[in-house]
């Protein structure tokens, strides 16, 4: 580990800056990189080689596709239709919106999903005199659960899929079952602990009337974008094409990053959107943040720091595969609840690779443990995932104030339930595979 002290110090300082939000996350990561470049710990060519271009391409491609699709207004239209289907039944609001949130989160990013869903949920529940907090927190939590199911659903999965070479189908085949079980268990817990709040309203004529008026208001308020059918068809056709190419990755040989960016460019060409406008909707800070972190972790890997951590921390637990898998799951889950799960996943990938070299575990189970832990663990606290922070922020703009503890009161138990389900699933999967 010669020459490792400075990279370790820089990495820890960047982590502290990220955790306490001392500076912008991209600035923190890139400033750390600059320190390493100035002190000649790494040169610029080597630094650039550490950036995982596949991940960046996939993120950029999906951000572009989602930004264009959002302009079609189709997701808002879908949410308004769902609101109408609930007919104001509190339980139906929870279930229907949770289903749409989970599905959208699996194929869009979680933040986009909550940006679309939460304002409608707040309008509906507040107008009905229900407590919107329960619904806001539940949708944030569900978006993190839904996002776990696919390669493109959550940033940790994008990173794992790109860096490890796991396919879109592999994610769906291996993670959809535990995710569906976690989703059902989460909803069941929400219903069980708040049964009083989910009483039907169909015996109350005045409430039914209010709901009908409210649904009409929601239609007027949220369907502000006139649906351009041609634009919509082009957008949905390209999304379908992207999904088809993700699914047929093993046949076409096209990586997810190539697929996403190709479809994004195609979509820009055929919809003729204003590219300058579109570029303002791309989260460049996130892409720069990812690039900086890849370099910082790449340096630590090159200096054998991660190898040391793998051998002296993670592999100290012995060679029992069950213990190794569950340790990766729970450590990822708990750490992701308090720290950003993106840097954590980037750091863990080389460590998991080293662990697999020493203790091969079949069927990529250790990667699924990392994915489930990092994604589901984000639900532990309000700061554990971007979707949580954004949901609470939207609620605040609508005068619904959710405290850190109020969020945790619901989310901690659901996180523990989902991590226990993931533990059982991984244990059974390992038992079958060994």
């Amino acid at each position, binding site marked *: 580990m010669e020459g490792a002290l400075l990279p370790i110090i820089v990495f820890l300082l960047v982590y502290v800056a990220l955790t306490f939000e001392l500076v912008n996350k991209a600035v923190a990561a890139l400033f750390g990189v600059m320190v390493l470049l100035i002190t000649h710990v790494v040169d610029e060519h080597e630094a650039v080689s550490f950036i995982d271009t596949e991940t960046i391409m996939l993120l950029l491609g999906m951000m572009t596709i989602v930004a264009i699709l959002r302009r079609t207004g189709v997701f808002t239209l879908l949410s308004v239709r769902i609101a109408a289907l609930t*007919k104001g039944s509190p339980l139906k609001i929870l279930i229907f919106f949770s289903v749409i949130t989970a599905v959208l989160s699996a194929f869009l990013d979680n933040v986009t999903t909550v940006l679309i869903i939460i304002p409608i949920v707040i309008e509906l529940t507040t*107008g*009905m*005199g229900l407590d919107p907090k329960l619904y806001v927190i539940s949708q944030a939590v569900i978006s993190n659960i839904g996002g776990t199911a696919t390669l493109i659903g959550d940033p940790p999965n994008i990173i794992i899929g790109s860096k490890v070479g796991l396919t879109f189908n592999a994610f769906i085949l291996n993670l959809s079952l535990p995710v569906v079980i976690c989703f059902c268990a989460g909803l069941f817990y929400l219903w069980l602990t708040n049964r009083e709040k989910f009483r039907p309203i*169909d*015996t*109350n*004529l*005045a*409430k*039914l*009337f*209010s*709901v*009908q*008026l*409210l649904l*009409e*208001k929601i239609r*007027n*308020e949220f369907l*502000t974008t*006139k649906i351009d059918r041609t634009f919509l068809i082009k957008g949905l056709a390209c999304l379908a094409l992207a999904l088809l190419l993700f699914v047929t990755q093993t046949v076409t040989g096209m990586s997810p990053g190539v697929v996403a960016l190709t479809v994004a460019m195609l979509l820009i060409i055929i919809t003729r959107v204003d590219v300058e406008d579109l570029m303002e909707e791309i989260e460049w800070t996130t892409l720069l943040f990812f690039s900086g972190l890849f370099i910082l972790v790449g340096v630590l890997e090159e200096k054998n720091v991660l190898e040391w951590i793998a051998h002296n921390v993670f592999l100290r637990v012995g060679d029992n595969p069950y213990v190794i898998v569950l340790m990766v799951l729970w450590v990822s889950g708990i750490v992701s609840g308090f720290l950003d799960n993106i840097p954590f996943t980037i750091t863990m990938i080389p460590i998991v690779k080293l662990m697999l070299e020493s203790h091969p575990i079949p069927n990529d189970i250790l990667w699924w443990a990392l994915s489930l832990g990092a994604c589901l663990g984000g639900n532990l606290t309000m700061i554990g995932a971007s979707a949580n922070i954004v949901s609470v922020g939207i609620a605040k703009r609508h005068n619904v104030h959710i405290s850190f503890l109020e969020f945790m009161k619901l989310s901690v138990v659901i996180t523990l339930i989902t991590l226990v389900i993931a533990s059982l699933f991984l244990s059974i999967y390992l038992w079958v595979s060994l």
Partner: protein
Amino acid sequence: MKEKDRQNLFKIFRDHGDVLGAHGTSLVALESFIRSIQDVKCRADQLQPLVDELIQSIKNTEPQITPLVHLMEAFETEMVGQFGEDLDATKQSIIALLNDKLSVLEGIGKQMVAAGLTCIDRYDVIIVYSTSASIRDTLVKARKIGKPFEVLILKQDFTKTRKLIWTASGEDIDHEVIPEYNLSNFITKANKFFLGTMSITPDNKAVCPLGAAEVVSLCHLNKIPVYLFANSLKFSHKPSHDHRIHEKNECRLEGQTSYNMTIHSHCLVDLAHVDFIVREEGPIPRADFQKLLAC
């Protein structure tokens, strides 16, 4: 109905009024009433108290939606004796009565468009402020029959003006959107002002969208005729102070400055500043207002 639920209902009514106007809100309310009757689950003997409770709430909104109040009063009279032991049959007869009211309202809407058309002349430049469905539909019809005219849309908060802007763009109506506070710079260009209202009261007032009184004053001062679109259902028996204009005091924070602001949902326009009231039968000049109010 709990007070909190009543206040929620009133707020939803106000929000609808801002976007759809009194006529549009009344249509939505009747359709919602029909759907809620279809969905309600209760015993046959429980239905009447539920319907009575709902009618009272609808009649007492803040502010009152006069067309809806009139329709509810007529409905109350007609539904006497409709409640029987068969729940489904009772529901069907109530729905039939409500559908009748819906037809009445739709019929009035069509008559208002025909009357409105007589108020538009070739090359008029019309100021439009409110979200009245009658005014919107009149402008669309005038465009369809090929009358050349221009509309100056006074922009309030976007939610209130959005539908008007959409209609003008979608129907290819020659229009310009200007902020309401900038009207004085355009006043010489316009020659008519079309305004919608919630109610006309016996004390010579009209309950209009917030800010309309200022626009009316400016038009009156500049001798621009004011056309107030008010169908026969908008004439109320109650004086203006009984129309329960909603008042809200809220704490606002803008930048570093925090302040309390009081805002009303609607304002009162003096009929002395109005030149024509447009009813189903056509525009009535100011000289005949008293005759109209006496009816």
